[in-house]
């Protein structure tokens, strides 16, 4: 064989080999088409595969679980509250043949899911009250902030279904519609649920008034407790002062009684003592009764002046 021909031949053989093989990565599945016609079952096994060169075409389709994260949409709940709902879903292509025929690429698939899920989410949200979409656990008892102890926030509103049930509802409703495109919807979850601007203002107003109520309660509690303490002050003062008065009177009265008894015992022990007491006490009274400005008129008959008048001759009786 001619040495010069060897190289081109080798290159041609390599190219042919290259054209008749294709690889399938772990993340993809492949549909082989021949002049636009699907040939055989989708190839899901990863690795190196053969194909008829130049005639067959490899169409790669995602095998992994995919995510749909649709745009947030404004919806109305059953209790007429407008909320922005942002959900996400997980899906995968289970029927690649159907998918390939009806959708061809990921973008059109996502558009299809957006249409289906937006509609079903809107329906589900409209069937339920807001609290059903927010809450999940039906019987949860909230922990109470002991420092607040205001009765305002002690309970959570009751629910009948809950978020998980509504998510399941949406999933169940959307699955058949998407199965027609070879898509299996694995789950749907609410990612964000926010009040729209108009509702938020009302919520803020309610939260504000709720807090003001708590604040007012604290203030009046403070005033009440202060009044109670001041009342206690008045009570204690009156009690202390009156008790002191009572004790003083008791002690003094007892002493007075004792003194009286002592005097009575001394002065009244015999008739002579009684007489002597009255005599000395009368004399003592004179000392205090007669002051400087007093004019005293004495007659010579008086005991003091008897001698004065009669002279020394008459002996005093």
């Amino acid at each position, binding site marked *: 064989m001619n040495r010069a021909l060897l190289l081109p031949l080798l290159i041609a053989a390599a190219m042919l080999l290259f054209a008749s093989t294709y690889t399938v990565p772990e993340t993809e599945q492949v549909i082989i088409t021949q002049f636009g016609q699907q040939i055989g079952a989708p190839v899901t096994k990863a690795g190196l595969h053969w194909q008829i060169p130049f005639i067959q075409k490899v169409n790669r389709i995602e095998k992994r679980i995919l995510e749909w994260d649709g745009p947030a949409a404004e919806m109305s709940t059953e209790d007429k509250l407008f909320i922005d709902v942002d959900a996400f879903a997980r899906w995968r292509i289970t029927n690649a043949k159907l998918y390939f025929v009806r959708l061809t690429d990921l973008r059109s698939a996502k558009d299809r899911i957006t249409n289906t899920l937006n509609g079903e989410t809107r329906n589900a949200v409209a069937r339920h009250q807001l609290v059903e979409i927010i809450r999940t656990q039906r019987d949860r008892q909230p922990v109470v902030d002991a420092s607040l102890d205001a009765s305002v926030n002690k309970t959570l509103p009751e629910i009948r279904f809950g978020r998980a049930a509504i998510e399941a509802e949406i999933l169940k409703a959307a699955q058949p519609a998407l199965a027609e495109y070879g898509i299996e919807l694995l789950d749907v979850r609410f990612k964000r649920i926010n009040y729209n601007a108009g509702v938020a203002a009302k919520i803020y107003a309610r939260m504000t008034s709720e807090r003001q109520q708590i604040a007012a309660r604290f203030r009046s509690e403070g005033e009440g407790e*202060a009044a109670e303490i001041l009342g206690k002050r008045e009570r204690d003062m009156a009690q202390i002062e009156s008790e002191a*008065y009572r004790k003083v009177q008791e002690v003094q009265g007892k002493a007075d009684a004792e003194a009286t008894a002592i005097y009575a015992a001394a002065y009244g022990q015999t008739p002579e003592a009684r007489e002597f007491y009255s005599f000395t006490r009368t004399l003592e009274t004179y000392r205090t009764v007669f002051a400087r400005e007093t004019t005293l008129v004495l007659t010579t008959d008086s005991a003091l002046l008897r001698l004065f008048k009669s002279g020394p001759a008459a002996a005093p009786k």
Partner: protein
Amino acid sequence: MKNVTPPQYQIPANLGSLAVPAVVVALALWFALTCFTSVPTDSNGVLTRFGKFVEIVKPGLRFKLPLGIDNIDLVPVERQLTLDFGFTTPSATNQNQAPDDPEAERNIVTGDLNMALVEWIVQYRIEDPKQFKFHVFEPEGTLRDASEAVMREVVGDRTIDEVLTVGRAEIETETLTRLQALVLRYGLGLTVMQVQLQKVHPPKGVQASFGEVNQAQQEKQQAIFLANGEYNKVVPRAKGEALRKVSAAEGYAAKRVNEAQGDAGRFNATLTEYLKSPEVTRQRLYLETMQEVLPQLSRKIVLDDKAGQIFPLLQLDQKTK
């Protein structure tokens, strides 16, 4: 300009014989470069051949087939990765770390239909490189969405006060448990290690009223302190005053009794002496008293009992001296 003839390079005559070794050397070099991959210590490599998974390769210099037959994808399994929710860390290195819309992300409706601004982080690691690479499209993006959904689910079952104060730790553990379960179910190949709440606030429009509650709490305490102050200002003093009065009364009582006893003693003593000679003593006492009393008086008029008629002339109110 001088006309300089460009230097003439001579093509060596033995080029043909040199070309083969040159090509061989170049091939060897290229082979060496494409046949080895260095797997860093914090990573594992996922080795695929023709797209098919072969094995997980450990850190070190690893051989692989060239020409795109073998491929090693590096997965940082040892690195602790973080996702921020509701806020952004300027120094973030993880491309999924920062949120697209922090404002919308931190607004969460609570179980009592109030609103709270919640910021949190999720820390995770890639645990299963094979699953991480092949099972789910963009696992870290899915983790972001799952984290948000779970956090909202948990906050959605709590009151605003639990979210802001008492329930923080519980929210973290509850979110972590549920998120771990969900990540396992989704087969993301990740393991969530921690959920940590960062700043949690009431919404901007109501922050003032939450501040007012704090202020009212302070005011309540202050009112009580003030009242206690008023109480303590007077009551202890009144107690002391009461004790003083009682003591004074006891003093009075002692004095009173002692004086009575003294008086009685004195009286008894004089009485004893008096009884020995009552007439003389009476006389003496009377006269002594008169002696003391009379000199103090300013006017003394002595009348004979026969001269009673001078009375009308006496000017009793007239001052003497």
